[in-house]
């Protein structure tokens, strides 16, 4: 899966599942603040990642994800590892 496709899918599910305006999703924006995520929302983020990309996020991984770009990079890395396996 290309990185562009991953970014497109992420943006689509964030708009659909988290009801954020697409214009607010910019790479350098803070993801938690933009999506107004609380602890319950992170559970739903795990669910949509699993259903879209087939891997399970462990909670600690979110510690290093601040911006949307961090999130894109993280998902791309995980999907690539999965595809290579």
């Amino acid at each position: 899966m290309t990185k562009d496709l991953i970014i497109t899918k992420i943006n689509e599910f964030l708009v659909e599942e988290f009801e954020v305006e697409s214009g607010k999703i910019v790479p350098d924006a803070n993801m938690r603040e933009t999506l107004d995520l609380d602890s319950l929302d992170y559970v739903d983020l795990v669910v949509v990642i699993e259903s879209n990309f087939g891997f399970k996020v462990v909670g600690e991984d979110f510690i290093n994800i601040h911006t949307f770009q961090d999130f894109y990079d993280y998902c791309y890395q995980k999907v690539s590892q999965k595809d290579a396996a």
Partner: protein
Amino acid sequence: MGIWSCLGDNLEAVKKSLYEGKSGIVLDPQRKDWGYRSCLTGKVSTPQLKGVIDRRARIQLSEEAEYAYLSTLEALKNARMEQDWIDKNEVGILFGNDSSAKAVMEAIDIVRAKKDTTLIGSGSIFQSMNCTVTMNLSTIFKLKGINFTVSAACASGSHSIGMAYLMIKWGLQNHIICGGAQEINPYAFGSFDGLSAFSIRQDDPTKASRPFDRDRDGLVPSGGSATVILEDYESAVKRGAPILAEIIGYGFSSNGEHISNSSADGQVRSLEMALKDASIGAGEIDYINAHATSTPGGDKAEAIAIDQVFNGSKPLVSSTKSMTGHECWMAGASEIVYSTLMMQNDFVAPNINFENPDEASAKLNITAKAVDKKINTFLSNSFGFGGTNSTLIIKNNTHLQK
């Protein structure tokens, strides 16, 4: 009051259905694939809440909590109880609900397939608990008063109103949102269908629910939500609220007998307690909204109980379940809404499909047609598995007008 039922999505539509004797029963072919003995069910509109309430609130709502949100929205509007006012006052909630099977089953299906509880998602726990309605609505409407769910099988909705009545009567609360909600999906009714309790008159769905009729063969499951808002008189007047009626009596009892069979003796005790609490005689009841669900044994027991308590006065009797089917946890509340609509509009709704009485129902004054009649006081029965009985007596608002 507010309503979301198979007779309509609002009070006006439901009033029309009640007067016209319109059935809300359909055949759901999907149930055949599920192994149901009967595919008959009440059919309610599917709520569309995306864009109406925010995502966090919405994903926590079970099916019955969605219905309850909508019936409560209508009730609050009609009661002229706006959010600004709620924010400054202690408003409670007591709702009847006794299952949330769909939410539970969907969560279990995910765990079985994925072997991972995190993948259930965050909304499920708040959908799955019996108190799904009260926990969600108290959060959405930011309520600060009493907050719990009444689980009493098919008397849940009635007892919730009875509990709210007592809390207000005893001065513990001034304003309580109460009612009953019932999910209506195949997960919810499989075990009930398994008891062969449902009508199998599937060739003619609108004729299947026929309480008190000699040829009844079982109930038809149904659902939705009904909300009534109770207030103490002084608060309602001070607030300028439209006062629809007064609850003047609440009776209850437990049969202390079989888990699923009805008991006329237990029901008589509930009826007599309600009349005593209301300080009125049986002759002052103009209309009885019977619990009668269309089962052979249950209707017979209720007919015997009503005849024993009302022998001589013969008030008009009908079971609106002939049109709605059995709304189970919701029924005790919805039937207060239906009967209050009748009282406001001077008619008694028909017990449709009542064509031939049996020996017990022949002793009652059951009407198969809508009757134009002024109702001063009505009585509503609700009975449930485990032998729980609840009776409410409601008086019209003419004595309360200023």
